């Protein structure tokens, strides 16, 4: 029996989960969506987006051509930025781990397009594209990758830990699943104050196996919190497939365990993601958490240093042939939304943005060692240790 709150707040209550999922993805009934039909012939996991896109009919125009061009431009920015980051990593300008959004551009762009500027985003360590799409200056994102003082986290976070309070990116997090309880608590704070914002919390498919996933979805549903949980299903943890990690590989179905509306969407189609995420955000804003699974692909390895040897040559060929940025560009050209000159001009514009970002990052200074002890505590305390390695506790400490 659905709770009163659910009945009051959620117009989809009472519909089957699959119907709710269909509604979420394709409210008009015209947008292609990768919603698997329940049934005996259901695939073990949602098919790759490339194969499902081709199986659907072309959408009726739902958004302006300007919007379609903007999707492409945004996807292109993420693509070129990440390629530049990979290059900088191989040049040893970026340290640590470096996980890229290559292949996930449409998912990133569609999700971020659904948020209001005042909504909050919690994400994981594969978050450069999200930072860009929240509107953070690419210079500050690249400077963070370089570990410089002008970085979005002042050089304290690096690739995995971007944060910008003004753009309400409340963190990339490096511990798988760590962001879920935090996002749930942020939604609790919004609810506590009676505010109208929502929280979006993205994660990878592997995160669905961790305890924090269950605890957070349960709490969010119990307390009717305004949060959208988004699983970016690129079919792989590092090299472990979803089928080897999840007993129910249709990850969106886990919403049913928490009486949470859920949907799955084709993550190669920015418009479909935008529509699905908008529905999810509306449900969340009405006081109901939501689980959205975005099916996508990771074009390269888990991180820059991973050669992805667990993939076959055949798989690599398929990925290359279905590159979401290239196929989306081709689709817009086929639809007459863009021509080759437009794409050339966009490439040129974005190349400059990325080059400027890299130049800015390279010229930004490293944080001063004098600031090493500045961020241990927000409230100053007596007897806080401020000793460099080897310095004695008492006596001379020069």
């Amino acid at each position, binding site marked *: 029996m659905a709770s009163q709150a659910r009945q009051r707040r959620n117009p989809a209550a009472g519909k089957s989960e699959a119907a709710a999922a269909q509604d979420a993805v394709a409210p008009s009934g015209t947008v292609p969506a990768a919603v698997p039909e329940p049934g005996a012939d259901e695939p073990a996991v949602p098919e790759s987006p490339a194969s499902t896109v081709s199986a659907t009919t072309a959408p009726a125009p739902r958004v302006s051509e300007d919007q379609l061009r903007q999707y492409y431009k945004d996807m292109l920015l993420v693509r070129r930025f990440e390629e530049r980051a990979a290059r900088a990593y191989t040049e040893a300008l970026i340290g640590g781990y470096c996980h890229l959004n290559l292949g996930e551009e449409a998912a990133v762009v569609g999700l971020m397009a659904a948020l209001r500027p005042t909504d*909050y985003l*919690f994400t994981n360590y594969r978050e450069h594209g999200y930072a860009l799409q929240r509107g953070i200056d690419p210079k500050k994102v690249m400077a963070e990758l370089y570990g410089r003082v002008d*970085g979005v*986290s*002042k*050089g*304290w*976070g690096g690739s995995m*830990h971007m*944060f*910008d*309070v003004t753009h309400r990116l*409340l*963190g990339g*997090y490096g*511990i798988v699943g*760590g962001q*879920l*309880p*935090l*996002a*749930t*608590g*942020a*939604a*609790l*704070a*919004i609810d*506590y104050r009676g505010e109208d914002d929502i929280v979006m919390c993205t994660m990878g498919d592997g995160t669905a196996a961790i*305890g*924090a996933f269950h*605890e*957070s979805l*349960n*709490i969010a549903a*119990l*307390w009717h919190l305004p949060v959208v949980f988004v699983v970016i299903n690129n079919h792989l943890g590092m090299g472990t497939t979803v089928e080897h990690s999840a007993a129910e590989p249709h990850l969106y179905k886990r919403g049913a365990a928490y009486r949470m509306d859920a949907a799955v969407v084709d993550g190669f189609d920015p418009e479909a993601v935008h529509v699905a995420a908008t529905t999810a955000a509306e449900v969340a804003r009405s006081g109901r958490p939501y689980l959205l699974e975005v099916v996508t692909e990771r074009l390269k390895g888990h991180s820059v240093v991973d050669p992805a040897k667990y993939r076959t040559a055949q798989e690599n060929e398929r990925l290359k042939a279905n590159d979401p940025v290239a196929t989306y560009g081709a689709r817009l050209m086929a639809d007459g939304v863009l021509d080759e000159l437009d794409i050339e001009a966009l490439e040129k514009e974005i190349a400059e943005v990325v080059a400027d970002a890299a130049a800015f990052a390279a010229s930004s200074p490293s944080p001063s060692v004098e600031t090493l002890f*500045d*961020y*241990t*505590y*927000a*409230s100053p*305390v*007596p*007897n*806080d*240790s401020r000793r460099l390695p080897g310095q*004695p*506790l*008492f*006596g001379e400490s020069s």
Partner: protein
Amino acid sequence: MTIMTYRQALHDTLRNEMLRDDSVFLMGEEIGVFEGSYKITAGLLSEFGPKRVRDTPIAEEGFTGAAVGAAMLGLRPVVEIMTINFSLLALDQIVNHAAKIYGMFGGQAKVPLVIRTPGGGGQQLGATHSQNIELYYAFVPGMKVVAPSTPADAKALLLAAIRDDDPVLFLENLALYNTKGDVPDADIPAEIGRAAVTRPGRDLTLIGYSRMAHVAAEVAAQLATTEGIDIEVIDLRSLRPLDRETIVESVRKTHAAVVLEDDWLTYGIGAEIAASISDGAFDYLDAPVRRVAMAEVPMPYAKPLETAALPSRYDVITAIRQTLAAVGYRTSSQASTVSGASTVGASQ
């Protein structure tokens, strides 16, 4: 001043802070309808309602992390974790998130969070419910860990913890909830990071925190009366930051120290204090620093074994006498100097 229990001091302080500041709210297992496993939150649900006194599912990682997230947006959650043993379920959210967020993002988000949780053995609760693992949190830069031993400090340190902008682990103790003491009527927060010399003395420095600060005070009073030994007692009150200056200043005066702790000996709080004394008062020491801690075993259930594993007053007095003997101190009842260290069956 009002005489009240440690429990009452905690309850009243929570209530007053909730009345003072709308952003203060409580979360935890069984704190509302059940009124708390140890009744610290009794009556608060009916007074403040479920929005501010929030019963959680049994999901330490989930609700502790949710408190961290709420704190990032400016609320001041006070989380109750039923016992410190269960905080291990929330370790990732406390250590990898609460303690890291201010620094990891370059000071852009504060985490004004309090985690209240009791430690303590001696209740025949067995291996998983009798631990003293505050050290795990005191180890972590970004965390603050306080451990009040008196009702007055329970109030003053809880006020400080709630008003602090950093995550504070607030260590309580099962054996202290019913202890009584004077509590100031005014709301004056303590300064986190300061120890207190609770009894001045010349002959030896006795250091403890939480329940063991009580044991220290009682033993010092007893030995002063019976043998004229003048012991200086330090109640640490804060484990991170640790007030090394107060410890070292005392040892430079007394030339000897015994550290009392309810946790395990090896790598324990006492080890850190002994190292601090070595750094700051090496030339002043007339005897090795002695530590009295719990036996290094998973706590057994059977009462005689549990009693043997826990540090007793007898163990403390033995350690003091042996340390003073090493110093060359001669008490007024020299004949009573103990030789053995066996504590099996010793009563308090």
